[in-house]
């Protein structure tokens, strides 16, 4: 009788123990945290080792197999890309220069109703995927950019996050200056494509900031 009870208690535990599988995967290119975020699954237990750049997976054989396939898909070499930024200030001030009017598409100019387009600065930034690129632009503007490869390697598309911050200002009796954000957006850019990113006020269209962003993947 007691043997039968013992078997009844131990049998499910033994079955579960047989089902669970542990697998350690060493990553070659990506960080363990980024892959862990990707594999965020309630049933799969993941331990991260930054020291060995590895992930330890604990789950059923099917879950571990699926996770391994996902890791193999995303643990690819990080790509390098080059970005060309042309920073243009659009305004209707008669004294402003109009040296960047040819860079802005005519159809967009007809929509915007600005009369002057002055190029403030242009910059070329080159960096690795998932790394921050910082740009110091003319007129105390600061830019920060980061990209990721979004789609398959056959027709890659870059997901670019861009932030342009204005001149730091001291408001009131505040000790630290306040840096206003002029433009902050994420854009999907194809290899070799130029995207127009713009920012202005909602109603008072006195001036606007236009950034022509060209992305190019490097081999």
């Amino acid at each position, binding site marked *: 009788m007691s043997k039968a009870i013992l078997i009844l208690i131990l049998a499910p535990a033994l079955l579960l123990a047989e089902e669970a599988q542990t697998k350690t995967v060493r990553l070659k290119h990506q960080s363990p945290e980024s892959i862990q975020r990707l594999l965020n699954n309630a049933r799969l237990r993941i331990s991260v080792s930054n020291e060995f750049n590895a992930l330890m997976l604990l789950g059923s054989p099917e879950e571990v197999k699926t996770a391994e396939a996902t890791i193999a898909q995303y643990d690819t070499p990080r790509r390098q890309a080059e970005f060309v930024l042309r920073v243009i*200030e659009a305004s209707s001030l008669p004294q402003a220069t109009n040296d960047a009017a040819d860079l802005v*598409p005519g*159809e*967009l100019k007809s*929509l915007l109703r600005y009369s002057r387009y002055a190029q403030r600065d242009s910059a070329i930034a080159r960096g690795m995927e998932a790394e921050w690129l910082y740009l110091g632009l003319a007129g105390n503007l600061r830019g920060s950019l980061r990209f990721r490869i979004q789609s398959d390697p056959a027709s890659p598309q870059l997901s670019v996050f861009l932030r342009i911050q*204005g001149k730091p200002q001291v*408001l*009131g*009796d505040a000790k630290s200056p*306040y840096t*206003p954000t*002029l*433009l*902050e*957006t994420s*854009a999907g850019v194809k290899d070799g*494509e*130029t*995207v*127009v*990113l*713009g*920012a*202005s*006020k*909602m109603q008072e269209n006195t*001036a*606007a*900031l236009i950034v022509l962003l060209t992305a190019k993947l490097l081999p």
Partner: protein
Amino acid sequence: MSQDELRQLLSSLPEDAELAARAARARRGALARLEQPVRARGGWLWAPALAVFVLVLAAGVWANRARRVEPLLWSPPAPHIAVAPLPAPQRATAPKRIPRPAPRAGKQERLELHLALSDGTRVQWIFDKNFSL
């Protein structure tokens, strides 16, 4: 002394009065021995208690004397607060607080517009209430 005389001397018993006197003397001696230690024990118990009481009393008197502070031979004069040559306090003016431009509730602050021009150029335009170039 002949054998007969010695046997007679050894077998002779004292007189009854002599026996009674000896027994009374022995009883008195035993009673005296019995009562003497009791008296001695009672005396030795009281003596240390009395000595401790006397010592405690003496220590109390000494401590009471030692605690007392003898009066000073000379008393210093009482201190007085000097008047400092300072100007009268004035009410400070509170600094003006310039509030940061707070966004109005209920109004949209940011609008992101995605356009595709006829030549295929994609435009992302952000209308931001706090934009100031």
